[in-house]
C-alpha cells in the first residue's frame, strides 16, 4: 500500500481491507487493500476479467443482486463495515450512488427520472429546483430544459447517461461509482461526461472503472491497476488482484510494477 504524502491530509472515505470476492466457488478477485480519499477521482483500470467492476459493485453492495456472489474482508465506509449483518444495503446505496455502463433511464419523463430518487429518499424541498440543479450539475440542463416532460428515452445516448448521472446526484450521495460510463458513448459525449466529472469533483468523491487508459489519465487523481493471474493449481482460471495503486501521474509515468508498465504501454489487455 503506497500512500501519497501530499494527499495524506485528506480524509479516507472508503477503504477495502483484505477483500476477496467470489462467484460461487470461482474466486474473482482476492486480497484487495485500497483507500479512497474524499474529493478524489479514483480510476480502476486493468485487463478484462481482473475484477475491477466486481470491486466497484462491492462498494455499494450491488453484488448482493448477483446470485452466489460472496465477499470476504471488510469495506469500511464512514467507519462502518458495510458488510456487517446489521447494515441495510438500501441505506448504503443512498449514500453511495451508482452510474452504469449502459445508460438506463427509467421509462418516465426526464423530470420524473430525477424526482423519483429524491422522493424515495424523503426529499421535501422544492422539487423543480432540485431537478434543475441536478441537471445543471450533470451538464445536461440546456438540452433538457425545454422538454422536462418528455420521456427519458427521447434523449441521445450521451444525454441519457448524463441524465443518469443527474439522477444519481439528485439523491445527494457522498460517493458516485461509475462503471465504464462512457463505453457505450461516442467521443464527444465522452468528453462532455468527463467535463461533468471535473465539475462534480468539487462536491463528490468519484470512483470510476474504465477500459480507456486515456480517460483514466484525463480525469483521475489516483489510479488503481488491477491485473489477473492464473491460479497456482494451473487449471486455466484467473483470479484478479490489485497490482498497483498510486497517483495517476506516477502510474502512467513511472510505475513500480513491470506489469503496469506493460499494460499502460498497450502490451496486453
Amino acid at each position, binding site marked *: 500500500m503506497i500512500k501519497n504524502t501530499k494527499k495524506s491530509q485528506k480524509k479516507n472515505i472508503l477503504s477495502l481491507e483484505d477483500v476477496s470476492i467470489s462467484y460461487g466457488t470461482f474466486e474473482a478477485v482476492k486480497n484487495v487493500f485500497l483507500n479512497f480519499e474524499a474529493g478524489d477521482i479514483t480510476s480502476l483500470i486493468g485487463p478484462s476479467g481482473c475484477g475491477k467492476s466486481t470491486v466497484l459493485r462491492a462498494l*455499494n453492495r*450491488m453484488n448482493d*443482486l448477483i*446470485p452466489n456472489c460472496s465477499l470476504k474482508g471488510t469495506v469500511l465506509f464512514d467507519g462502518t463495515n458495510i458488510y456487517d449483518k446489521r447494515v441495510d444495503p*438500501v*441505506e448504503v*446505496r*443512498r*449514500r453511495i*450512488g*451508482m*452510474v*452504469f455502463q*449502459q445508460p*438506463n*433511464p*427509467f*421509462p418516465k419523463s426526464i423530470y420524473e427520472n430525477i424526482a*423519483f*430518487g429524491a422522493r*424515495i*429518499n424523503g426529499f421535501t424541498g422544492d422539487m423543480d429546483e432540485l431537478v434543475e440543479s441536478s441537471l445543471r450539475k450533470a451538464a445536461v440542463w440546456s438540452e433538457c430544459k425545454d422538454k422536462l416532460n*418528455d*420521456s427519458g*428515452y*427521447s434523449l441521445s445516448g450521451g444525454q441519457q447517461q448524463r441524465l*443518469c448521472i443527474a*439522477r*444519481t446526484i*439528485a*439523491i445527494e450521495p457522498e460517493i458516485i461509482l461509475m462503471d465504464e460510463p462512457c463505453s457505450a458513448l461516442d467521443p464527444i459525449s465522452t468528453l462532455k461526461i468527463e467535463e461533468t466529472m471535473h465539475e462534480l469533483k468539487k462536491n463528490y468523491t468519484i470512483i470510476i472503472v474504465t477500459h480507456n487508459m486515456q480517460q483514466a489519465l484525463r480525469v483521475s487523481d489516483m489510479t488503481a491497476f488491477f491485473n489477473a493471474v492464473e491460479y497456482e493449481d494451473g487449471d486455466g482460471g484467473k483470479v484478479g488482484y490489485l497490482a498497483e495503486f498510486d497517483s495517476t501521474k506516477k502510474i502512467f509515468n513511472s510505475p513500480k510494477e513491470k506489469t503496469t508498465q506493460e499494460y499502460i504501454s498497450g502490451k496486453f489487455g
Partner: protein
Amino acid sequence: MNSLYYQKKLSRNVGDKFFTSLSVFCALIAILPLIFVVTYILIKGGAQITPELFTLEPNPPGDDLDAGGINPALIGTLVITTIASIIAIPVGVGGGIYLAEYSKGGPFSKFIRFGVNVLAGVPSIIAGVFIYALIVSTKILFGSMYSGFAGGMALSILMLPTVIKTTDEGLKLVPNELRYASLGIGASMYTTILKITLPTAFRSIATGVVLGIARAAGETAPLIFTALFSYYYIVGFEDLFYEMGSLAVLIYNFALEPYDAQNKLAWAASFILVISILTVNIFSRIFAVFTEKTKRV
C-alpha cells in the same frame, strides 16, 4: 456445367414447390374451423338478436312460442367473471412477482413454476368438482350451496395459471439494468417493483390478464358444478349466494332442449359470447399497441 437459370424440373426445385404448397394447404385447413365456427354462429345467432333478448328473463322450456331473453345469464357471466378476476388477479400477480423478482431459482420456486404448469393443464371440470366438494357440498358459505360466488372461485382457479405465468414472463422481460438503476439510487426492493418494474411490465401483464378473463368467461363445465343455472334476474348482493345463470351454461342447457324457441335462445347466447370474447381479445391487442406507442415518445 449447369445453367445459372432457374430450372423448374430440377428435383430440388420440384420438392421445394411441393413442400411450400403443402404447408400453405395445412395452414388453410388449420384456419378453416375458426372461420366456419365463427361464421356459422354469426349467421345462426345473429338472426336471433332482438332488443328484448338483453332485458328479459328466459321463459321455462315448454312454451314454444316465446323463449324470453338472456339478461340473467348475461349479467351472471359478468358477475362470475368479475368475482373470478377479483380473486385471481391479486393472487396471480403477487405470485408472479414472487417468482420473477424475489425467488432466486431455488427448489421452492421451481416447485411453484411446475405447479402452475400442472394447474394450467388441469381440465376445467376438475376445477368445478373441486369447488363443488370444497364449498357447494359442505355449504360452508353461509349455508348456501350452488352460488355465483362458488362459480367465480372455480373460474379463478382456471385464470390463476395464466395470470401468474404472464406476470412472471412480463417481469422477466424488464431489463435488469432498470432494476439496478433504481436500487443503485437507494430504492428499496418494494419501491423498485411497485414504481419501476411493474409499470414497465404493465402492458404484457394486462394483456395476459385480459386473455385469462376471456378464457374463463367461456367455461361451462366448472359452472355446472358450482353456479348451476338460474332463470331469474339478479337484483341484489344476496343473489351472489344463490344459483346463478351464465351464458355458457345457458347454451349448454337450452341447446339440449327439444323446443325450437330455446334452441334459438342458445344460438343468440352463443353469438353474444363469441362476439364478446372476440372483442376482448381484439381490445387487448389494440390496448397493447396503443400503450406501446405512448411509451416510446
